């Protein structure tokens, strides 16, 4: 063998960990308050406030829902379809402020301790994933408190504590960006009608 033949440099073994690290570098520049989920609030202050006041919000919502049901003849007169736009606008603003609402159109806040599950990067509606950090923060967004850790805290404060144990159906994506308030009212009114008819 000739000695001037260059020795091939040892090729560095590329492990999966290396690739993962490099892939992370690509998204390393990311402002701290940006999330793959569109977020209404920059901070978590209001979300936390809502969870702390889950009990009073629960009480308030119960009365509010009743009032909406009482107004059913009015909604009927206006037409649910025509009422949709203004009600949705108000709902979006109010719930956006309080809960960072994502307008999934099928609100389950009463079963999730007033912590909106759609803020979870995995949009889990049935409890926390296994990746919650030891400090109770999210695995995907390290500076965000886990939505479900908060939900559990909120549920402890509420009257309907065991609502959190209900198995939720998958999200119906076709209901996105519609008013949950009106839908709940319409369904409750239909239910009431059926009951009164059955009683007669």
């Amino acid at each position, binding site marked *: 063998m000739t000695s001037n033949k260059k020795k091939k440099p040892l090729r560095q073994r590329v492990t999966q960990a290396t690739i993962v690290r490099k892939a992370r570098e690509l998204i390393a520049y990311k402002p701290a308050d940006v999330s793959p989920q569109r977020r209404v609030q920059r901070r978590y202050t209001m979300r936390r406030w809502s969870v702390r006041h889950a009990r009073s919000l629960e009480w308030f919502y119960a009365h509010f829902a009743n009032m909406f049901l009482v107004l059913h003849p009015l909604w009927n007169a206006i037409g649910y379809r025509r009422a949709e736009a203004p009600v949705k606008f108000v709902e979006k603003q109010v719930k956006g402020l309080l809960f960072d609402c994502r307008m999934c159109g099928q609100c389950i806040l009463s079963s999730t301790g007033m912590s909106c599950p759609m803020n979870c990067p995995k949009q889990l509606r*049935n409890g926390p994933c*296994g*990746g919650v950090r030891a400090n109770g923060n999210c695995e995907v967004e390290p500076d965000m408190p886990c939505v479900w850790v908060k939900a559990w805290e909120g549920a402890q404060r509420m009257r309907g504590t065991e609502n959190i144990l209900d198995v939720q159906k998958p999200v119906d994506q076709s209901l996105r960006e519609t008013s949950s308030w009106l839908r709940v009212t319409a369904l409750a009114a239909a239910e009431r009608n059926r009951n009164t008819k059955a009683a007669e």
Partner: protein
Amino acid sequence: MTRRPPHIDENPHGVDLPLEPLPGHSSRGRLERVLRRGEFAVTAELNPPDSANAQDVYERAAVFDGWVDGINAVDASGANCHMSSLGICALLTRMGYATIMQIACRDRNRIAIQGDVLGAAAMGVANILCLTGDGVQAGDQPGAKPVFDLDSMSLLETVRVMRDEERFLSGRKLSTPPAVFMGAAINPFAPPYDFRPLRLAKKIAAGAQFVQSQYCFDVPMLQEYMKRARNLGLAEKCYILIGVGPLASAKTARWIRANVPGVHIPDDVVRRLEGAQNQKEEGKRLCIDIINEVKEIEGVSGVHVMAYRQEEYVAEIVHESGVLKGRRPWKREPGPDDAMVADRLDHLLETPNQRPVDMVKDAAG
């Protein structure tokens, strides 16, 4: 070739035939039989290859032969791209292995998932493990679109509806429902700790029949969790398999702790590894010690050995911990007619060319 006595978990009329359905069983799988007999089950995780070569899968499965009751085919674990779980199951079920197909909700929506469940069941996959899946940010392709159309709970519900109510989520009828044993994952080692046992209860309500846990390195924490699960009566409703695995070194342990979501490794485990002469050996020893502690906990029905890139140690770990108690899980063995088939195949290749075109050519000289 002499015929060996049939294994308890195979069809007495022939190894290649599907198992007879047993009353009360939801699948025809061996894993369900082992668990329902009350035996301590062992499952292992197959490291999915980054190749399109079937041989790679067979080689990786062969190291588990005769030591495990089920092989988990992971679905892009940690959001890293590998051969799909459906593909691995297709290969392994052909060879008679008992596979546990994992389905993660990260990559597919409900349309794709329901189709895969039917396809898998048709191929003979008897166990399906329903997972949410890691976020795409954890893997090597953080730019991917996270789907998460279902979550683990609604996935369980979906599969249960398909199996028990014989319909799709939409209500459309299935002519043959998928006979599968349904599994889920638990992680007793992540907050909110109070909620974790209740979440297991929720998963059982949604249809989980067995659960496999995240890596257990903290036995006291697991004991606490199991105590609460037993108090809720969950251990009778569902088979709980605890995840264990060897750590290659203290450095790996620290890396896993910092980078893999949901794995809790206490400091004394890292210290024990650091203090050892041979860290790899100590990691294995530690795994065996944990198995020995875990198997004594009331309500634990088995272990799930996740020896990532150390699959060759699984047999050793299972053997040395003695969890099988002399039991021999089913093992793929050459059947009495395999030699005949091989012989025939050789013979087939030797037969003279019989294509009409060539025969005419030959005749024409």
